[in-house]
């Protein structure tokens, strides 16, 4: 590996990031929206959070996470659209197809960004100028998806620096970071500009007198490992900042969850439970699609009066059916506060669903397994929600499937 020096090898990791992805896709699909401030929300109500804003909206101060009513104060002409997942999935697959033409070693980091590893591609491809390939990818996106589409491209010796490079000049930039300009780039950034440094990590660094990325770079490994992060994470940061690869890892799925902001305040408990049941069906379907069963259920509720409330339960044996998830979630939920504005459920302690321990109720388990598999097969063929519990009837028009941020497992 290295002894504290910078990675001086040729930068061969390319990070591609679609600019304001969902808003740009809407502007591509609907030409009359181009040049206008556009925001995408998961529901068209004034109290919904904005998930993406176009550059025109961002220029007016609209940011992600802002409520629609707040954004309207800044941008009265703001066009708010409800998210349209099939459209974004299509563009995601188009981007993936374009990236695959350059290397078999691509990783989609989320619905709007991916990484091409040119260290592992063919010799002929490695001989090409990567900046030229970056511009070619931009052109292909323009030609094959549409003229409103653009992306940021970052090239670096590791994933971290490639992503950092991709964020330097938005929109539509292309930057390269290597050992020759590393200090210069860090000199222009703040700690929060670094991927992985948010409020808590910044506070940890500030405690030992590190206030800038350059100070972070110059900190010795012992300080980072023993004092700041108090774990191997400190050494990983030391390597990462110098361009060595520490992020080429895949993580096993640990939890599967969904949340829902209730469409109205003051819903009766029976209706809230129906929506919780709907979430449980969705979580169960997602979990089984990954070949997993769970041991634990976690539920939470946010209340305007009682704040954040949560409960969890570990079962002695793994479970996988929607009914089993809901039965436990509903039991936990009996202690939830009265007035609720948001609910969520997740399954944790996941294990492979292939090697189920024999139980005294083996026949019953096998029956549930067959019924669940049949329901999943029908929903797979005829569309999500074709077969569902009678209890959740009518909830589909409120609790809709939305974009899974972060993970590309369900795309």
């Amino acid at each position: 590996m290295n002894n504290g020096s910078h990675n001086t090898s040729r930068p061969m990791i390319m990070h591609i990031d679609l600019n304001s992805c969902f808003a740009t896709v809407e502007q591509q699909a609907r030409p009359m929206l181009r040049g206008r401030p556009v925001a995408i929300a998961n529901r068209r109500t004034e109290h919904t959070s904005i998930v993406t804003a176009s550059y025109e909206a961002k220029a007016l101060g609209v940011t992600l996470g802002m409520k629609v009513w707040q954004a309207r104060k800044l941008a009265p002409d703001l066009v708010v659209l409800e998210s349209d997942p099939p459209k974004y999935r299509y563009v995601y697959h188009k981007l993936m197809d374009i990236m695959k033409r350059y290397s078999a070693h691509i990783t989609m980091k989320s619905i709007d960004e991916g990484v091409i590893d040119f260290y592992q591609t063919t010799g002929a491809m490695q001989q090409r100028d990567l900046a030229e390939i970056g511009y070619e990818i931009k052109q292909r996106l323009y030609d094959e998806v549409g003229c409103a589409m653009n992306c940021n491209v970052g090239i670096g010796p590791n994933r971290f620096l490639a992503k950092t490079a991709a964020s330097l000049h938005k929109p539509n930039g292309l930057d390269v970071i290597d050992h020759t300009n590393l200090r210069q780039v860090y000199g222009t950034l703040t700690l929060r500009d670094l991927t992985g440094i948010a409020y808590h990590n910044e506070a940890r660094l500030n405690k030992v007198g590190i206030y800038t990325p350059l100070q972070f770079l110059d900190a010795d490994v012992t300080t980072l490992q023993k004092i700041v992060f108090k774990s191997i994470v400190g050494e990983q940061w030391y390597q990462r900042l110098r361009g060595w690869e520490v992020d080429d890892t895949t993580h096993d799925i640990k939890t599967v969850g969904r949340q829902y902001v209730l469409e109205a305040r003051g819903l009766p408990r029976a209706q809230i439970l129906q929506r919780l049941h709907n979430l449980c069906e969705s979580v169960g379907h997602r979990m089984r699609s990954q070949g997993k069963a769970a041991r634990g259920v976690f539920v939470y509720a946010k209340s305007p009066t009682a704040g954040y409330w949560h409960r969890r339960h570990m079962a002695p044996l793994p479970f996988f059916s929607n009914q089993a998830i809901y039965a436990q979630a509903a039991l936990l939920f009996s202690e939830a506060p009265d007035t609720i504005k948001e609910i969520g459920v997740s399954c944790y302690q996941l294990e492979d669903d292939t090697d189920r321990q024999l139980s005294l109720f083996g026949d019953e388990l096998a029956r549930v397994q067959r019924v669940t598999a049949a329901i999943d097969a029908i929903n797979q063929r005829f569309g999500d929600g074709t077969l569902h519990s009678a209890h959740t009837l009518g909830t589909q028009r409120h609790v809709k499937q939305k974009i899974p941020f972060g993970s590309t497992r369900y795309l």
Partner: protein
Amino acid sequence: MNDETFLNERVQVVASFGEGLNLCRPLVFKRPNGREVKVTELGLRHPANKGVRTVHIFDVTDGGTDYRLELDTERLTWHLTMEADHYE
């Protein structure tokens, strides 16, 4: 809020089937009220599933209004499902 109207109008469409990125391109469509709309730009075409059926969704404009047309590949029917104009 913008002015989106969601519809389910069966429309008659003249489309070209050729080569290139968009193999199928709606050119003109006629609404049940007799109004003809000339498509000036195809913004995006993407497939979507309606149960087992695949529909192709064409987001198009006539230069003043955005429209969404859906081609049902099983029944070979076209529907106008959204109209959005002015955004004022």
